[in-house]
């Protein structure tokens, strides 16, 4: 059976995150006061067979463990077949353009 999972990837504490800083600096100009410590990461959604080595996947590809931390959230029992049409939570998950990491 397949399950859905979300992988949250963020820069490790102590590593300068210029994207987060830029967002944080932009907020007061837009009238959002009192927001600090903004850090920008990314989220990967995927479906995997039970027993898939998600941690290995993160260590080897999705995250760079030297500079990024990751968290895996699984939603057990979410079969990929049939669920997407009826389950409102999975209906929110739309295929789209992956976040463009400029390089």
């Amino acid at each position, binding site marked *: 059976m397949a399950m859905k999972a979300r992988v949250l990837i963020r820069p490790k504490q102590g590593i300068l995150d210029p994207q987060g800083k830029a967002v944080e600096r932009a907020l007061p100009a837009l009238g959002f006061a009192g927001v600090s410590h903004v850090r920008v990461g990314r989220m990967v959604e995927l479906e995997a067979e039970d027993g898939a080595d998600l941690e290995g996947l993160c260590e080897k590809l999705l995250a760079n463990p*030297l500079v990024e931390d990751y968290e895996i959230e699984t939603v057990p029992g979410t079969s990929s077949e049939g669920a997407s049409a009826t389950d409102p939570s999975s209906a929110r998950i739309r295929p789209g353009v992956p976040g463009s990491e400029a390089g």
Partner: protein
Amino acid sequence: MRFGVVQFPGSCDERDAVLACERVGEARLVWHEEADLGGVDAVVIPGGFSYGDYLRAGAIARFAPVMDAVHDFARAGGPVLGICNGFQVLCEAAMLPGALLANDGLRFVCRQVEIEVASTATAATAGCTIGERLSVPVKHMSGRWFAPPGLLAELEAEGRVVFRYAPGQNPNGSVGDVAGVANEHGNVVGLMPHPEHAVDPLCGSADGLRLFESLLRSAAPAPA
């Protein structure tokens, strides 16, 4: 002396890399699907945006079939030079230490910089002198080399910091002004600046040739 210049989908500096190699020897492109380097004497992994830089720069290119051959070539002591995206690929492949992060200024930087040679015990700097300054261009978005303090100290102690940006010229916020590093044997070297774009005075500097001449020297069999 034959150079192999690896080309991934999204590479964009492979032509200049071939032309630079041809100043000192022969060169051919090696397509990313090739599993055999065809007996080349040195490998250059050029700049660009392999696989669109999806996920992280260099993260996907490291799984290309050609990279197994590059690993084997490096393990056997063959000289490998990674430039810009090639440096990112080699770091992602754990063939070089550290990681490349987004520039601290969040902008793409494209300018001529001076770098200083910090080690001559590598395949790419064997013909240079310590402290020698080279004028070469940088052009990158994710060039901020990073290593945790302990690792950086270790690399410095082992002479594996190969290039530093000249004082005041660090374009990306890399720790210790590091512009390029080597593996423990010195045969694999990566740097963010582009020596292949600086091989003719017509382009403002021919200093980049020093690296290709060094590779030639490193790859050539010892004189009898």
